[in-house]
Structure formats: structure tokens, C-alpha cells
């Protein structure tokens, strides 16, 4: 392989440099029917799962076919998407805020043909390349993060847990038979790169062992005061130890105070947390974002820990399926998962979903914890 220059001259980095141009203006990318009717749409309809029809005040119609995809996507895959878009959509496509792909056409026939085409495409391993669905009162794509594919702090994998989960709930992706939309999100550590804290169902990687301290290197790779300041519970203090006959500056961790947030590791590479047995999954439910009927709310931790069981995390997916099915069978129309749990009471939620309640689920983080305890005699036996 020979180095191919883009034209950039490292000797003169400022030569011809273009900076601060931002993204392209979106208007360059809009399909003509979209550009024409922008700001003048009248209504929409979900013709069938994965197929939306938007009708403009002009009378124009646009049919959108939405299909799922693994967010971790190769350029081969993107090129295939482009081929499809070239064939059916005049060279336009879009991605949704939940990593689905949308193709837009102007007739129902094209929409049907496109849908058929998309669902016919499969990977050699047997999975759909472009399953159509993700609309209406169903499960759509899982918003997720990097996991073991790219990040340094994950407590689990992202792509794998997502694939395992979507396989199990796939029927809900292609049907619209739930009481309301169910948004599943995944984040591989407590940094929660995503809206895991406000999702109907959230898969969260968590650590459970305090950082290991790499005393030998700590003082070289991080600043002790920053590491100390990083800890929200004050578990870390500066200390000196003797290492191979030398006094070195390092830190000590009061393990009982650690709640495994990983912020120390973020600030100091010499304090890794990850551990095969310590790491795993916490499940949260009942968050939402829309202001429809009820206000946005946070997700709540309902299973404090499930061990990592790669490649398919069967315990985790079983719990998720059970929750989803119970919700589907019990909730009112338009009722989001958390609104259902609030209505029946969390005591019933645990009972109906056959989940064990443990003290780990009782908030003990700072003053607001109090507001999640129960200050009433209203409860159900």
C-alpha cells in the first residue's frame, strides 16, 4: 500500500485549508416531492407496517418505506442501499433518528414493489438485509452505542445485545399490534450514549467491580487530583505507596463507596473496571420522551443485573420478551409502557412480569432518592 495524498500538505497545514463549513445544506438532498411540499403537508397514514403515506396540501403524495438495519453498517451495505434508491427513488434516501432507512416514492405501486424487493434481500447467514417495519404501535429499531466494537468503557457489547433482542421481538417490528410505540434503547456503560434514560425498555451495560489500580503507571498517565475529583461518591483519595522500592504517587479506592460509574476510568486510564464476571446488563423500563398524554419520564431500573451471556444473552432477551408480552396483553390502547406500570402500580408490574424485586432497585443516590420511595399508604397487596 502506497500513501495516497488527498492534496493535503502536512508542511503547510493551512494551505488551501477549508474549515468551519458545517454540513451541507439539507435542501441539496431532498427528493423533489419533499422539497415541493415542504412545510405544506396535510396528513399522513400508515398504509401497512413500514409504509407511510404523506399527503400534501397540494394533493401530492409521498410513500415512505421504512426498513431496519444494523447501525454498524459496511460501505457495501450502504452501496446496496444506494443501488435501491437509484432504482426506485431517483437517487434519494434518508435515515431516521433511530437508524432506520427510509425510501420515498410517489406511487403506491412503486411502494409495494420496493417493499417486496427490500424484504427479498437476505444476508447469506439468513437474516433480512432490509426488513420493512418500525412504524406505528410497534417496536422500532434499537438505538444503541459502541460496545466492544469500539469503546474502552463498555460493560457489554452493543451490536450483539441489540441483534439478539431484535431477533426475539422481531414480530413487533413488522406488526403494529402493541398498545403504543415501544422504544428500546441500549447503552453499554453508565455514560449512556443515547436516550436510554428515557426509554420504554433500556438495556444498559453495568460494571460491578471497583477499578483495579495500575499503581505502576498511574502517576504517568493521569493527574491524581483529576482522578480524585472524578469520583462522585468521594471514594478515591490520593495516596503514596512503595512500589519496587520507590515511593510513588497513586490513589486508593474505598471499595464500599464505589457505585461503579466508571468516571474515574474516563479520567484516568490506569483505573480499568471491566471484568468478565463483574460486568453485565441492567434493564430499565418505563421511560418516554413524547409529551403525548403524559409527560416525558425517566426509565427505571427493574432488573439490577444479568450476567453477560454472549453471543445471544438469552436470560436478558427472555426478560425483555416477557415484559413486552405482558404489557401487550394488559395495557390500554395508547398507553405507553411506563404509563401502564404507573397505572397498575409497580408492585403489580413486578408480579405480572414475574420479576424479582430486590433492594438494589430502591434508589439510594443522593437526596432525590427520597422522591422515589413511597410516601403514602396507597399500595396494593
Amino acid at each position, binding site marked *: 500500500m502506497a*500513501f*495516497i*495524498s*488527498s492534496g*493535503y500538505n502536512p508542511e503547510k*497545514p493551512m494551505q488551501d485549508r*477549508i*474549515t*468551519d463549513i458545517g*454540513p451541507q*445544506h439539507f435542501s441539496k*438532498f431532498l427528493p423533489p416531492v419533499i*422539497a415541493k411540499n*415542504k*412545510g405544506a403537508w396535510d*396528513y399522513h*397514514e400508515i*398504509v401497512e407496517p413500514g409504509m407511510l403515506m*404523506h399527503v400534501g396540501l397540494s394533493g401530492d403524495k409521498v410513500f415512505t418505506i421504512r426498513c431496519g*438495519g*444494523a*447501525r*454498524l*453498517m*459496511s460501505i457495501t451495505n*450502504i452501496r446496496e442501499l444506494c443501488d435501491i*434508491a437509484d432504482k426506485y427513488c431517483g*437517487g434519494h*434516501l434518508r*435515515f431516521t*433518528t433511530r437508524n432506520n432507512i427510509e425510501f420515498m416514492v410517489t406511487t403506491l405501486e412503486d411502494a409495494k414493489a420496493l417493499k417486496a424487493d427490500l424484504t427479498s434481500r437476505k*444476508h*447469506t447467514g439468513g437474516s433480512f438485509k*432490509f426488513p420493512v417495519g418500525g412504524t*406505528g*404501535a410497534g417496536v422500532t429499531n434499537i*438505538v444503541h452505542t459502541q460496545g*466492544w466494537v469500539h*469503546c*474502552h468503557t*463498555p460493560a457489554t*457489547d452493543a451490536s450483539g445485545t441489540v*441483534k439478539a433482542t431484535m*431477533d426475539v421481538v422481531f414480530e413487533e417490528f413488522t406488526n403494529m399490534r402493541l398498545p403504543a*410505540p415501544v422504544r428500546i434503547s441500549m*447503552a453499554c456503560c453508565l455514560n449512556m450514549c443515547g436516550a436510554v434514560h*428515557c426509554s420504554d425498555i433500556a438495556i444498559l451495560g453495568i460494571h460491578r467491580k471497583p477499578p483495579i489500580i495500575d499503581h505502576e503507571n498511574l502517576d504517568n498517565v493521569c493527574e491524581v487530583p483529576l482522578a480524585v475529583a472524578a469520583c*462522585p461518591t468521594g471514594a478515591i483519595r490520593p495516596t503514596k505507596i512503595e512500589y519496587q522500592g520507590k515511593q510513588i504517587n497513586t490513589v486508593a479506592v474505598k471499595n464500599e463507596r464505589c457505585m461503579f460509574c466508571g468516571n474515574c*476510568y474516563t479520567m484516568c*486510564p490506569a483505573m480499568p473496571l*471491566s*471484568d*468478565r464476571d463483574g460486568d453485565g446488563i441492567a434493564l430499565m423500563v418505563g421511560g418516554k420522551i413524547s*409529551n*403525548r*398524554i*403524559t409527560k*416525558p419520564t*425517566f426509565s427505571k431500573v427493574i432488573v439490577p443485573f444479568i450476567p453477560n451471556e*454472549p453471543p445471544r444473552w438469552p436470560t436478558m432477551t427472555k426478560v425483555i420478551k416477557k415484559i413486552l408480552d405482558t404489557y401487550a396483553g394488559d395495557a390500554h390502547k395508547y398507553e405507553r409502557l411506563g404509563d401502564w406500570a404507573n397505572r397498575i402500580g409497580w408492585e403489580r408490574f413486578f408480579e405480572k412480569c414475574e420479576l424479582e424485586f430486590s433492594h438494589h432497585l430502591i434508589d439510594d443516590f443522593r437526596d432525590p432518592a427520597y422522591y422515589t420511595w413511597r410516601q403514602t399508604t396507597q399500595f396494593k397487596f
Partner: protein
Amino acid sequence: MAKHKTPLLDQLESGPWPSFVSDIKQEIEHRYANPKGVDFQVPAECPDDLLGLLELSYVDGETHWKHGGIVGVFGYGGGVIGRYCDQPQKFPGVAHFHTVRVAQPSGMFYTTKFLRDLCDLWELRGSGLTNMHGATGDIVLIGTSTPQLEEIFYELTHKMGNDLGGSGSNLRTPACCLGESRCEYACYDSQELCYQLTQQYQDELHRPAFPYKFKFKFDGCSLGCVAAIARSDMSFIGTWRDEIRVDQKIVAAYVGGEFAPNAGAHSGRDWGKFDIQKEVVDLCPSGCMRYEGGKLEINNKECVRCMHCICVMPRALKIGNDRGLSILIGAKAPILDGPQMGSLTIPFIKAEAPYDNLKEFVESVWDWWMEEGKNRERIGETLKRLGFARLLEVTGTTADPRHVQEPRHNPYIFWKEEDVKGGWQREISDYRSKHQR
């Protein structure tokens, strides 16, 4: 043929959902086949080694990526996340594996031309693997080496006319819902505002000058399709302040069963005949609707614009005409102080080009946070620490009951000296003249 055996990952090829393993495998094959004879600037085995390394993580139950390194392009403080693997000997193809965040167009519409150009660039200079898109909204190109960073940036800016996105203590890449481009609910042009503010604040985006990261997100309405309220330090959420427009004839058609409620979103199950009383009127959170004598009445003054009724009957009910947006401040993930959602700061403001009113607000917020925010303190945390009233003060916003869900429970008011008749300077001798010890 792939170098590494991946028996665990192979199990993720079955099942209906698109398999990222199968996809990476097709990239591995494509890369080794190299039909166009590309002179890969990062090793051809890059995706192959990624899969191998990932398999090792599946075996070990632990990540094999080292703590990030500081890499980037000249003059920018963000846009690249440095990454090195902790088994470079076994997996040389991913020894360096940085990601490049590319600013996405508002609403994530693309031409195939743009995407193909990007693929070509990334085939030549990267792993051929991407995230479409990252959780913040960027196009994320995952896996390249340090020497390629400037080259990628150069080609991106020169050939594709596109910039990098954000990372670090910067303004992060703003994101929006598709809004007016394909949604009848949009109360303002979320894409345009997203674009305009992105352009306006290029400097803040590329050159870290903030205490910590700062995110903008733009939802065209309160349904929140880009989840602004949950994950943006400043959320712009569309709304209106006049009346929901009602077409009673179409309401009747819904009641008559002519149109599927909620645009057919529930058509996968038989929920029985549409019951407007139960499904709309009774669920209205403000209780401001009545359906009587075949007529739907909305007491708009009491409506909290939750959009439920509109969602259920999108052909009959339409958002108001006097539109604008609400601004909420402080959303963030739990690290460190616990999760926050945005707190309503500006109940209503017009959102029309050139958006000077909005820019003025943004800057007043930043000025304050840059002055008072601690290192690594999100603005939501600053807000908690210094009090919401402080934000109102620095942004010249009048306190309003809309700022609270309910007034304070405690009487711990920080009065200021000027509020109090006679001020605070008192002499103990004066006090003692009335009160013996």
C-alpha cells in the same frame, strides 16, 4: 477468506434481524476481493481483524480497546475519537482504529451521490465500516489510522463540501427531526434552524471553549422524534399558541369509522370500534375537550398541546397557525449527578429566519455557563448548583409559573439585600437596645 475463527459471532448471523456480523463479513470479502483494486490506505484486513477482536471480547467478556488517545485534525478540538486496540500483534489491522465524526445534513436526507462519494473515501482511507448514524447524529466512520485523519478531512472539505462533527468540550453536532420536510406536525422548520445555528456556531463546535460538552436538538413538535428533551443541553421544541384547527366533518368521518384512528398506527390488532370519548376526550391531559352532539369542542385556552388528539385524528385536527417553539435547558445522561431532562425556560418564542432572537438567547446562556460552569459540568448541573432563577436572570427572562411544575416545597428563599427594607447592615447595639441579653 476471513483470518479469524468467530464461532460465537457466527451465531449472530441467524435470526431475522439484519446481522451486523454477516454485514462485516461481506465487507471482509469485498475487501479481500477488492474488485476495483483500491489501494487501501489502512490495512485490507481491518474489518477482518475487527471481527476477530470482537470475537475475543465475546470470549473474554471484556473490551479490548484501550483508553482513547488524543488525535485529531489541525485547528480542531474535536471530530475524531482516538482508539487503539490492546492486542495489536494479533490484530494489526485495528491497531489504530479511530473514528471520524462527519456532520450529517439536517434531517438525514441524502443523495446516493453523496453517500457513494463517502463510501469511496472511506473505502480508500478507512475500515469500510460506519455507523449510520451515531447517537448524537453524526455520520460515524469507524476505524482509521492517525496519518489518514488530515487526508480524510481534506477530501471531505474539498471534494464533498462537508465538515467534521463535534466531540470534546464543544458544541456537539446539532440534530433535528425531519420536521417540515415530511411531517404535518412541524411547528417550525427544525432542519433550517438546526442548520443555521450549526453554521453560526462553527467556532464553538470545533474549538473547545466550554466547561464540557453542549448539545442542541430540534424537535418540530412535542412528540419529540429526535428526543431533544432527553438528550440536549438546549432543546428547541415546536408548539403553537393559538388554536387547534378542527374540521368537524372529518371528525365525524373518524367517528363513523371512515378513517383509521391514529393514521392506522394500531391496525395490527382489533381494538374495536373507534370511541372518540374514550380514546380522545377522556385521555386529554388537560380535560379541555368535549364531544357532544357530534361536535368536538376544544377549550384551547386550557389545552397543553400534548398532540394526542391530533395524532389520533390527523386528517381532522391540525396544529395551530401561530407557531414557534419552547426552549428547555439541561438534559443529559446520568453521569454524574443523575439523569436530567430539559427544564422549560422559554415557554414560547417565534422561530423565523434570521433567528436573531434565538441566537441572542443561546449566547446569553453560554456566556453565563462559560463564566460560572465548573470543569466537566454540564449546564444542567450548573443549573442545579446555582438555581434556575439565576438562568432566568442572566437571560433576562421573567419568572413565570410555566417555569415550574409546582412552586417550591421549602421556604428556603435566598433573598437579596435589595429586596429587604432597611438592608442587611444591622448593629448588635441597636438590637440590644430593644432586646436585653
